[in-house]
């Protein structure tokens, strides 16, 4: 009886096989075509960005990266202010977001009651799906007033002698942009860190607890040691996300081409400059300079992202986290 069913199934499948050898070819061709699209896009991005930034490249050469003048009127373009702003906001975001997200992930994965853990987990997952434009909107209408009326005066009162906290208290600027970026990447890094933490075999944790360790002792002496390479990788991924963000920052950074030590000063990032100027850029050289900015952003972000990705892959093999 059983033999029979297998037998007929076999027949059926062989019939299919004969019948479908062309469709199999089609499947292959379709798959390879899709793969081809992926390569087309990568090559396309690199070559078209290079091609359209050629005028600016020719005009300014390497000094583009080091010049801080950006003036469409006099047709002078330098990327330094934007690069500085990108780095500064990302740095602020990382300093705020990474410790908070690692701690929160530890709480959710290790300390909390399973019901709370699931609740927080779901909430954080939802948070990470909210698009950046909404964080930006919220930042502009909710965070900026709080910054100007509360945070900035407070910081100035506490450590106003430092050069970092000087200038107008209008709520906009590098610091606000960094905070918005931080709030934006927190859910992402919490999720990613939890994934790393969840990979630790529960037997290992049980072994630690059965030796009489407290939760924190297990986390500190065992989990962090086990997971720190992975957490480093996820932090880098979070950084690359912050680097590439454009819209949320454009809402709150003030959009001025200046470099100032003060975190209250307006500034810009590569992304925000593109968002603000690209559509209206009438001049060819201006557009070309903007596209070159895009190229710089591509190189920086993809660089960090690739390092993070390769690192995560490497340690998965070595440390046996998988």
């Amino acid at each position, binding site marked *: 009886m059983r033999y029979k069913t*297998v037998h007929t*199934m076999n027949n059926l*499948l062989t019939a*299919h*096989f004969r019948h*479908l*050898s062309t469709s199999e070819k089609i*499947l292959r061709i379709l*798959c390879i075509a*899709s*793969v081809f*699209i*992926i*390569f087309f*896009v*990568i090559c*396309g991005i690199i070559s*078209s*960005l290079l*091609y*359209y930034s050629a005028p600016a490249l020719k005009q300014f050469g390497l000094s583009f990266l080091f010049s801080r003048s950006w003036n469409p009127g006099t047709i002078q373009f330098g990327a330094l202010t934007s690069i500085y702003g990108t780095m500064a906001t990302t740095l602020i975001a990382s300093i705020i977001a990474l410790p*908070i*997200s690692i701690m929160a992930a*530890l*709480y959710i994965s290790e*300390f909390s009651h*399973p019901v709370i853990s699931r609740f927080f987990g779901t*909430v954080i*997952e*939802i*948070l990470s*799906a*909210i*698009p*950046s*434009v*909404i964080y*930006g*909107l*919220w930042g*502009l*209408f909710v965070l900026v007033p709080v910054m100007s009326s509360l945070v900035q005066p407070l910081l100035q009162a506490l450590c106003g002698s430092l050069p970092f906290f000087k200038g107008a208290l209008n709520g906009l600027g590098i610091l606000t942009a960094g905070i918005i970026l931080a*709030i934006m990447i*927190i859910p992402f890094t919490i999720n990613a860190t939890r994934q790393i933490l969840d990979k630790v075999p529960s037997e290992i944790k049980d072994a630690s607890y059965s030796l009489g360790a*407290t*939760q*924190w*002792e297990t986390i500190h002496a065992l989990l962090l040691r086990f997971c720190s390479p992975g957490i480093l990788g996820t932090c880098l991924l979070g950084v690359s996300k912050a*680097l*590439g963000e454009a819209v949320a920052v454009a809402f709150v950074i003030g959009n001025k081409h200046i470099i100032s030590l003060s975190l209250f000063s307006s500034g810009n990032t590569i*992304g925000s400059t593109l*968002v603000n100027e*690209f*559509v209206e850029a009438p001049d060819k050289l201006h557009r070309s300079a903007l596209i070159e900015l895009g190229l710089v*952003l*591509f190189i920086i*972000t993809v660089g*960090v*992202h*690739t390092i993070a990705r390769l690192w995560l892959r490497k340690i998965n093999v070595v440390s046996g986290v998988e």
Partner: protein
Amino acid sequence: MKAKSLYQRRLVNFIMLSITAGCALFSFLVLVMLIIALCKNGYPALTKTFFTALPAPPGVDEGGVSNALQGSIKMILFSALIGVPTGILAGLYIGELARNTRKADFVLNACGILSGTPTIVTGLFVYTLIVIPSGHFSGFAGITALTLIIIPVTARITAEILVQSSTAMREAAFALGASQWNVTFFVLLRAVRSGLASAILLTIARISGETAPLLFTALNNNYEADSLSQPTASITVTIFQYALSPFAERNDIAWGAALLLTLFILAVTLIARYTGKPQYLSRPLR
């Protein structure tokens, strides 16, 4: 030999528990504040005109975003229709046809690079690819940009799911003499369909929030676009431009649109979560 004080160990544990709980609570409160702000500012804006009217001139009260709604739906729908199957096919190549070969590794790395590419750069690329040659912004360009964002993400997820899926099942199917086509569509994809569906929903949720790439490609339109070859309004670009507008009515509409978008994304995310992985509270002992 000195025993450590239990009290001290407990205390440290409690302090760390409090600190980490504080961090988790902070992240949670941010969401609550965000949602409250969205509801408070956005809900009043969701009137009938909001959904049915075209944008009004600045300073006029009777405006809506019907064109942006339509534009967003069209662009998201079409890009998903093109991008998802293409991405799945590329994922099939990595996870099945070229499984465990260097070619698959190579393609996977390419997808990795693309998913690390800021979407604003993808937007720039499509601008140079379509907007410059055709001379104008268009819905097609917007669709292309979104599609190019979907493909690598879907490909990576598909490949990941396929690689994790049981090899025994594939081998059993091949042992019966099934063709690649058969195994792929009737065994593999069927076995992973719920995981795949949830991943695709998440991808769609993600692209529906994209702003910068649409700004460079579809731009905006104060009217309903007759065809996709014209500039096309979208919800996200509308939020961006209206929020920065000096007119209060426009700011209100931005909040309304933001609430709408968030509700949509939350709904899709929740559906994805509950169609996807089954949830176990704890693993059985061995």
